[in-house]
């Protein structure tokens, strides 16, 4: 079942001589439960594409549908609501809220999604990502790998349709990066959550079951790897 569909999706920055098509005419279908990597050289449009799928932005031309809902022309409030309910984010530099504890960071996502039972769900999920007993710590009392686990818990706790991770391991050493990817894969298999991530790291690409390669804002290859290692 397609949870995300892009048809001719285009994002243009600037106009006239300075016009840049960050992505141009992207056709793409994402099914529920995918574990997909977006690769390509710097500036090829990976982040821009993930922004479109993540409803952070809407397309200049073409269409993006999330669970059948078109994002183009939606008001800021509607887009924010869509993100709160359907999309979880994992960022390159973790971006936890520094004044909140790990557990509170996770609860925040549920609060923003308008869901109840945040505290218990947060503690349970923190245990699942291997941070049992660390829920009371502030981000600056956690290692980078631990912070990214909190971020994963924060992205997943509201049970989103899609989790978007833009270069999730770029700020981690390879062991922590591997551990984070193992965790993402495990959660993907256990909960069936869709994970979309971008990366420059071949090791990370190896985890993906589908690899979409971009160049100059267009898809140049879309390869499915069946049950990858």
């Amino acid at each position: 079942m397609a949870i995300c569909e892009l048809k001719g999706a285009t994002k243009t920055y600037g106009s006239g001589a300075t016009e840049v098509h960050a992505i141009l005419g992207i056709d793409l279908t994402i099914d529920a439960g995918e574990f997909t990597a977006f690769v390509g050289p710097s500036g090829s449009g990976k982040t821009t594409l993930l922004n479109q799928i993540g409803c952070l932005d809407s397309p200049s031309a073409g269409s993006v549908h999330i669970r059948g809902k078109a994002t183009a022309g939606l008001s800021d409030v509607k887009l924010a609501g869509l993100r709160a309910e359907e999309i979880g984010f994992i960022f390159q530099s973790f971006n936890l809220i520094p004044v909140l504890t790990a557990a509170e960071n996770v609860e925040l996502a549920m609060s923003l999604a308008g869901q109840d039972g945040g505290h218990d769900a947060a503690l349970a999920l923190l245990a699942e990502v291997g941070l049992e007993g660390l829920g009371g710590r502030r981000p600056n009392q956690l290692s980078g790998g631990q912070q990214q686990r909190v971020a994963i818990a924060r992205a997943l706790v509201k049970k989103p349709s899609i989790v978007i991770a833009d270069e999730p391991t770029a700020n981690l050493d390879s062991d922590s990066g591997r551990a984070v990817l193992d965790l993402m894969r495990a959660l993907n298999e256990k909960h069936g959550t869709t994970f979309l991530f971008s990366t420059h790291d071949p090791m990370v690409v190896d985890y993906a079951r589908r690899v979409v390669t971009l160049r100059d804002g267009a898809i140049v290859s879309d390869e499915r790897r069946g049950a990858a290692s």
Partner: protein
Amino acid sequence: MSDRTLLKLALRNATRRPMRTALTAGMVVAGTALLVICLSWLQGMFGPMLRDATNAAGHVAVRQQAYVEREQLMPLYENLPETAPLVQIIRQQPGVVDVQPRIATGGTLTIGEEIGEVFGLVDGASKAYFTERQNLDADLVAGGRWFEDDAEEMVLGAKVAEEAGAKVGDEAVLLGATQDGSLSPIKGRVVGIVSAGSGAIDRSIYIPLARARWMTDIPDGAIELLVYGADYEDATALAATLSAVPALSELAVQAWSTRPPWSQMGPMVDGIWAFLVFVTIFLAALGIWNTMMMSVLERTDEIGVLRAMGLRRRGAVGLFVVEALVIGVVGSLVGVAVGAVPAWYLATHGIELSEQVTANMGGQFPIRTTIKAALDGGIFASAFACGLLMALIGSLLPAIRAALISPVTAMRSGR
């Protein structure tokens, strides 16, 4: 985001940079403290002043139209020749507590054989008007008493007495004029000297109404009838009641607030008040704007992340406004407490104004030379509310700036 989460996050953010928060709160503290001091001072200055002034001038004054038109010249011939029937009618009107006929004019005072005459404002009315209405007997210097209504007696303001070299017990000659302009001397014994520290009171010569009638040759009348209700603030309603009385239809019936100098003073006092409040709020808000803007810029990535997680623009505005209001509540409470100390000192000790200042204010303003602040709950409440307003106004632009941060920022952060 639930209100509880928003409040929690705002509270945590407020404690994040203690120095900056202290600076923000400090501006609210300074603003509210200043307002408590200034507003209690203004109230202390104008409140008693208006009460004193309206006691002297009447809540409502009834005079000849022609007199009102040339009030500065004090034209004695534009008088009310028969006051007794008018007083009787006015006393029957609802809300009227007291009516006092009065003759105010000018005169020069001579003691014994001495040459060298001293000018004074001659105030002729009943003993009750001076002692019960204005409480002037409280300002009598030791050894004196007030005059009796039917006696050939007078009470002198301290300044007049000093310049004329008069003591209690002296015989004095007061040289005034009749209503048609002839010179008219009256004799009287000085039975008391008042020293109120007010230019107007200390420059006056107080005589019984009967003596004033004799001197001015207005045997049964007066210049004005001063009408009193229960409270000077209700004078406008009282004036309206009296204006409707047929016997007074030809006369000028004016509440104190519509007579000069108060007709200009009301808006002036309001203006000073508004200016003070406006400037204080503006300056404090400017400071708060500055520190809050620093916070917003510093937290750009974080706001982007919250926006990506589904925080609406309104929520971003709320986050900073609530943070500022939290700081504002604390700052206002501290500011009110801090301002109350000097205000309380001013309320109990007051500040001495020089005689020069009060004398220059002219006859209509019986300003006391020691002005005390007046503190009350209303002033604390106003200052507190203004403190919150400082926080609210100061945080508004930074909060809007925060709301304009795009959620895309989150994805670009850390690069």
